[in-house]
């Protein structure tokens, strides 16, 4: 079965020669759709997090607003919108205002590269993996600026922790990404998905895929500042870390981007290691593959991403937080060497063609 892969950018391009205005309209609609998706996904994720956390802890979570509290996130969003927006007197006002925007923009820009199904992908760049790595670095800029400009020592501590942590773990995450790039032979995200037509990289690449996935998951969790790596926020240590001085809408930007970064991480993990929208295929075993193809690719992507998100939430509601020096030790002394070795081993595998269903 061949997949008709066509990103929204390509379709806009097709429209462009005929009628530029239709193309502009198309672009505007796409922007609207992405923004709407981000908002809705954020609300859903926040609700899911609260419910799942509650049941991990023998509670019921939000129950009052709507059926089982489904509208709680919306109520919270309205509450946040109506709150007073405070910029501390001695804060650097411009940077203080800019920081959440940067943080949000980083997340939003990553969003357009994610292949959610063969046809739902805003822009399918040929350097997709590189783009995602580069743009997601904007988030740390937002956090650093937010902590710095607040003129609060707790915020500064949180921001410095976040800066050190995210930059360190970016290295490991990239090394793990490179393993898949090596196997797939392409940086294009849709290409990586299609390279898994005969099986997902998590198992086709022998141990390399599993190790790379574990590193990516740990490093990714650290990059998005979630427990056990939530040192930047570090509630019990730094009160609220980098966003101590933020309130109202600006806080909600940080909050939303944190949650959607989790979605981005889950989507990237499922795209790279679990085939993205690609159904579970085993080699050229046509019968089995045919049954798997009955489910639409969009659903496959959703299921995998949901499972990843659940895993990340599960981590958060089980583990305590690491200490700063332990965090750095884990990265530089444990994950990084393993990542390098893993990369060399997988390079050897690729060169020798020693992996399942090699071309």
């Amino acid at each position, binding site marked *: 079965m061949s997949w008709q892969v066509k990103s929204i950018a390509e379709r806009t391009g097709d429209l462009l020669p005929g009628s530029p205005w239709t193309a502009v309209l198309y672009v505007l609609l796409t922007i609207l759709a992405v923004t709407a998706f981000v908002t809705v996904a954020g609300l859903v994720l926040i609700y899911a997090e609260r419910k799942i956390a509650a049941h991990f802890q023998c509670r019921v979570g939000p129950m009052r607003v709507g059926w089982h509290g489904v509208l709680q996130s919306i109520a919270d969003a309205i509450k946040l919108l109506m709150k007073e927006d405070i910029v501390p007197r001695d804060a650097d006002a411009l940077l203080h205002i800019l920081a959440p925007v940067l943080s949000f923009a980083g997340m939003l820009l990553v969003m357009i590269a994610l292949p959610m199904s063969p046809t739902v992908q805003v822009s399918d760049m040929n350097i997709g993996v590189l783009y995602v790595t580069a743009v997601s670095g904007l988030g740390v800029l937002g956090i650093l600026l937010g902590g710095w400009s607040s003129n609060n020592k707790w915020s500064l501590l949180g921001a410095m922790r976040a800066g050190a942590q995210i930059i360190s773990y970016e290295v490991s995450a990239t090394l793990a990404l490179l393993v898949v790039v090596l196997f797939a032979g392409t940086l294009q995200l849709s290409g990586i998905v299609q390279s898994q037509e005969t099986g997902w990289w998590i198992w086709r690449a022998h141990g390399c895929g599993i190790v790379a996935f574990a590193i990516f998951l740990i490093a990714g969790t650290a990059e998005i500042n979630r427990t056990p790596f939530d040192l930047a926020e570090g509630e019990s240590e730094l009160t609220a870390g980098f966003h101590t001085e933020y309130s109202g809408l600006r806080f909600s930007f940080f909050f939303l981007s944190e949650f959607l970064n989790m979605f981005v991480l889950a989507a990237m993990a499922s795209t790279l290691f679990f085939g993205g929208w690609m159904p579970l295929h085993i080699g050229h075993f046509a019968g089995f593959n045919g049954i798997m193809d009955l489910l639409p690719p969009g659903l496959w992507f959703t299921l995998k991403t949901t499972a990843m998100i659940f895993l990340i939430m599960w981590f958060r509601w089980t583990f305590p*937080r*690491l200490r*700063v020096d332990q965090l750095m030790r884990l990265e530089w002394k444990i994950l990084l060497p393993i990542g390098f070795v893993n990369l060399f081993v997988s390079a050897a595998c690729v060169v020798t063609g020693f992996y399942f269903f090699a071309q």
Partner: protein
Amino acid sequence: MSVHVSTLQARISGESTASSPLSTEEYFVNMGPQHPSTHGVLRLVLRLDGETVREVVPVLGYIHRGIEKMGEHGNYRQFVHLVDRMDYLSALANNWAVTMVVEKAAKMETTERIQAIRTLVCELQRIQSHLLWWGVFGMDLGGFTPFFYGLREREQICDIFEKTIGARLTMNYIQPGGVMFDIHPEFVKDVKAFISYLKPKLVEYDALVTDNVIIQERIRGIGKLSAERAIALGATGPVLRASGVAHDLRKSEPYGVYSQLDFDVPVGKDGDCWDRYWVRMEEMRQSVRMIEQLIDNIPEGKTFMVKPAAKIKVPAGVHYSHLETARGILGVLLVSDGKEAPYRIHCRTPNFNNLWCIGEMATGGRMGDLVAMLSSIDIVVPDIDR
């Protein structure tokens, strides 16, 4: 208050502590009075070098209510309910401390039943207090889930207290001359059910927190307090025992019916956070042991020896008595001039002394360690200020 701060500032301006070639600048941070990890309105002035803690100075007085002074304006019975508000997690032990000194001084008789009930409820409250500590300890280390599990079990003890005593936190149950009520008819059944419920949960706590590699990494070897320093600072309770000093008033000066009970005193070796953690976890198990021995053997007898309204007169002089709460030794010094109201009451509260160990422990540690150490001391701020 300002004295402490200015002293610190004078100290930092006097010396340059940056030892690395990279020039770093030390700075002050106020941890508290409003901070999630100080568990109340405690203020710690921190001198930090990046993440490293150079000095910790606790600043007290944010919840001073003058309980000792208020005690001078009422009779002994009226003072008992005030001490509920000192260490609110060991309200019964606080009641008992005052009761003990009054009974000792006024030579009041008690029955075996009274002593057994007092011992039983105090051990239940010790478990309750340690459960809350366990949950908060997990939360301070960044895991939220233990907090809810700890509180869930604590709730059951609170329910038992609610049935027998009628209150959940501020009990005013142990009175000079007895206990306010006899135990509820369902008390024995409830306690047994709770004990059989708690035992598997303690195993679960080990799986969730004790054995967790992150917890082990974080609390082992930090916040060391030597036995000498612990004694010099007047630390008591689990903090002292974790440092290797087997000093437990329940063993060394048995009160209540502790002399008839078979239990061990957990003692640590290094005095680090892990030892304090372990001592408290083991104390819970020992308390379970004590309750199991006691619950079927509550002797019959009266539960109140004097008329509740009878006036208590303590002979003139200085009287002292102490006992072991969940946090350490609570001593009550009573100066009486022979009247109905005490001339002066002083409480030697465990948290006050235990708190000062933080300066000893935290110096040179990290910011995250400081939170773990503070939590491992298990302070209750109202008990510090009184």
